[in-house]
C-alpha cells in the first residue's frame, strides 16, 4: 500500500467514526467518498494481492454476502454488510475493513466497474430480474454488460436455474453451477443469448433455438441438505424461506471455491446469521413482536408472500417510490397479492394509495393508517406482526423500531 493510500484510508476511517457518532449508521459511504477523493485508484490498490469475492444479482446479494462472511469465519476480512453496494460503499468497506479476504456485495449496475477495479478471484451471481425499471430500464441490457465484464474472470459461481445469469456466467473462465432455485420466471421467457423462446420444464430450462440450456449443477438442495457430487451437508439456517437456502448454497459454493475452509464447519457457522442488514430481524415494539422484512421488486414479493403464507398474523405493508425504490410502482401488478386475503392488512407509506388500489383489485381488504409504524401497530391486537417494506420504507421502519 502506498503511503498516499494509507493516509487516505486513515482519514476515511476517521470520517466514518465521526459520521457514526453524529448520524448513526455505519459511515461506510462517507468513508468511501473520503478515500476516493484523497487517493483516486485506492480501490484497485487496496484489493491488489487479496482474495476478492464479488456478490451480485437482483435479489439475495446482501444475504449471500452475509452468509459468505459468516461461513468464512475470518475476523480480518473486509465486507459491506450494511448493503452499501455502489462505488462509494465498496470503497468505504475497503477503507474501514480488515486486511484479510474481501467479500463485497455489488450493485448490478456497478459490477463492471467493480470487476475492473478489484480483479476478483470469483463472482457470485444469484439471479437477474426486473427491479427499479425507471433506473435500469431493461433486464437484458444488464445481462449484456455482465457478460462483457465477466470475460476473463477466473471463476463464476452462478444460479443454474436462472437463464439470465447463466448466459453472462458462461463468459468467465470457469463456472460452478448451483441449483439455487428461481421462483420468479417472468423475465426468462426469452433466451438471453439469441432472443428466441426459452422454455421451462420439470427438469430445467432450455432455449428452443440455440444451445443455451440449464447446466448440470455441481451443488443442489435436497430438503435442507446441500448436496454435491460426493458431499451432503445439512443446513440449519435461522434465516427463513426456501430462497435463503438457495442463498446459503451459493455462499457455501463460493466458500468451497476459496479452498481454505472445511465446508461442514462453514455450514455450521451459517446458523449464527439471524438477520441481514435488519431483514428478518425480530423486534419487540410497543407490545408487539415484529418481524421486519424487505420486498423491493416482484420477484422478492413473490418469495415473501410464499414465506408468509402459512402464517395468519397481521401484516403492515409500507410502500414508497423514492429514489432507489424506482419511481414507477406499476410492478405491483406483476404479483398476485391474493395470498393475503383474509389477513389483517395495514398499509402505509408515501405511495400507500397505489398499494391500496392494488390490494382492492385482488380482493384483499386493507386499512390505510397514515404515519409511522407506531401508528400502524396501534390499531392491531398485541402479538406478532409481519412488517414488509420496499427499500426506503424498510429503512425508515427499521430505524423507528430500533429506536423503540
Amino acid at each position, binding site marked *: 500500500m502506498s503511503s498516499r493510500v494509507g493516509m487516505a484510508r486513515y482519514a476515511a476511517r476517521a470520517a466514518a467514526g465521526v459520521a457514526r457518532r453524529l448520524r448513526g449508521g455505519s459511515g461506510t459511504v462517507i468513508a468511501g467518498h473520503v478515500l476516493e477523493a484523497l487517493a483516486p485508484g485506492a480501490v484497485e490498490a487496496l484489493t491488489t494481492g487479496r482474495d476478492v469475492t464479488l456478490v451480485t444479482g437482483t435479489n439475495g446479494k446482501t444475504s449471500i454476502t452475509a452468509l459468505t462472511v459468516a461461513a468464512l469465519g475470518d475476523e480480518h476480512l473486509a465486507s459491506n454488510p450494511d448493503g452499501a453496494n455502489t462505488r462509494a460503499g465498496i470503497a468505504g468497506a475497503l477503507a474501514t475493513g480488515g486486511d484479510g479476504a474481501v467479500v463485497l456485495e455489488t450493485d448490478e449496475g456497478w459490477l463492471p466497474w467493480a470487476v475492473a477495479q478489484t480483479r476478483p478471484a470469483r463472482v457470485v451471481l444469484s439471479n437477474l430480474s426486473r427491479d427499479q425499471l*425507471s433506473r435500469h430500464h431493461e433486464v437484458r441490457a444488464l445481462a449484456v454488460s455482465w457478460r462483457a465484464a465477466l470475460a476473463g474472470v477466473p471463476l463464476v459461481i452462478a444460479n443454474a436455474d436462472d437463464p439470465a445469469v447463466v448466459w453472462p456466467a458462461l463468459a468467465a473462465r470457469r463456472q460452478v453451477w448451483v441449483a439455487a432455485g428461481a421462483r420468479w420466471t417472468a423475465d426468462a*421467457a426469452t433466451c438471453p443469448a439469441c432472443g428466441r423462446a426459452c422454455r421451462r420444464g420439470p427438469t430445467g430450462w432450455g432455449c428452443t433455438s440455440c444451445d443455451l440450456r440449464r447446466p448440470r449443477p455441481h451443488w443442489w438442495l435436497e430438503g435442507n441438505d446441500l448436496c454435491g457430487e460426493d458431499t451432503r451437508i445439512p443446513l440449519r439456517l435461522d434465516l427463513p424461506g426456501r430462497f435463503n437456502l438457495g442463498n446459503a448454497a451459493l455462499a457455501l459454493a463460493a466458500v468451497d471455491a476459496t479452498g481454505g475452509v472445511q465446508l461442514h464447519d462453514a455450514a455450521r457457522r451459517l446458523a449464527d446469521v439471524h438477520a441481514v442488514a435488519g431483514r428478518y430481524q425480530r423486534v419487540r415494539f410497543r407490545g408487539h413482536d415484529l418481524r421486519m422484512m424487505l420486498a423491493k421488486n416482484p420477484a422478492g414479493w413473490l418469495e415473501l408472500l410464499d414465506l408468509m403464507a402459512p402464517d395468519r398474523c397481521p401484516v403492515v405493508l409500507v410502500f414508497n417510490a423514492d429514489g432507489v425504490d424506482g*419511481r*414507477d410502482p406499476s*410492478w405491483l401488478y406483476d404479483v398476485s397479492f391474493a395470498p393475503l386475503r383474509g389477513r389483517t392488512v395495514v398499509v402505509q407509506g408515501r405511495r400507500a*394509495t397505489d398499494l391500496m388500489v392494488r390490494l382492492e383489485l385482488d380482493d384483499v381488504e386493507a386499512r390505510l393508517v397514515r404515519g409511522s409504524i407506531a401508528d400502524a401497530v396501534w390499531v392491531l391486537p398485541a402479538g406478532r406482526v409481519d412488517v414488509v417494506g420496499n427499500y426506503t420504507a424498510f429503512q425508515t421502519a427499521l430505524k423507528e423500531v430500533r429506536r423503540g
Partner: protein
Amino acid sequence: MADELTIVHVLPDLLGTYGDRGNVLALTHRAEARGVACRVVEVGLDERVPRTADLYVLGGGEDSAQLLAARTLLADDLVAAVLGAHTTLAVCAGLQLLAHGFEDSTGTRHQGLGLLDVECGRLEERAVGEVVTEPVDLPEVPSLTGYENHRGSARLHGSARPLGRVVAGVGNGHDDLEGVQQGHVIATYLHGPVLVRNPALADLLLSRAAGPLPEYEDPEVEELRKERLDVADPRRRRRHLLGY
C-alpha cells in the same frame, strides 16, 4: 349490456414487463362491479390468438421479448384482422407491434402488424416519468395519468388519431401527441397501469365491448388519480401555488 365478457390477454409472458396485467385486472374488476362476469384468456407462446372475444389487451415488453412477440404474431395471418375487428388496448411495445413498423435498440426497423397507420422510430433520449394528457375527442374521459418508460416514438399518419395531447411528459415524441386511436384500437405509451389510473378509459373500452354500463365509482382509485395528477399536472401545481 352483455352479461359475460371474454378478455384476451395477448402473450402476457412476453408483453407484461411493466405491470400490464393490471390493465386486465382493472377491466375485470370494473366489469364485475356491474355484474358482468369476465373470462380471461391468456395466450401463451404456442397458442393461437382466439378469433372471437370481446376485448383484447397487449402490454409492454423489453426489446428481445417484443421481437419474439412480433415474430409470433406475424406468423398468424389473421391476428391483425382479429384485433382490428374488436375492441383492443395496446400499451407501449403493444402499440409498436400494431404499427407499420418499429425500431429496435440498434436502430434496425422491424415490421409490425400494420393495423395502425403509425410508424414508430426511436426517441433521442429515453422517456421516463409521469405523464398527463388531455384526451382527444373523448368527452367522457377526463385527463389521462400514467407513467412512461420507453425509447420508442410514434408518428401518426392519415387515419390514425392521437389518444391525447401531452400536458406533461413526452408521449409519442411528435407534435406533443400521445397514443393512438384508430377504429376499435386504443394504443398508448402509458403504464401505471393505464386502466387502473384512468377508470373512465377502462369504462370506454368496456362499453364499446359490452354496451352501456351503469355508474360505478371507486373512491380508492379516485384518490390515486388525484394524487398522481397533483404531482404531475403543472396546471394543478399552478393552482396550488395561487391558493385555489
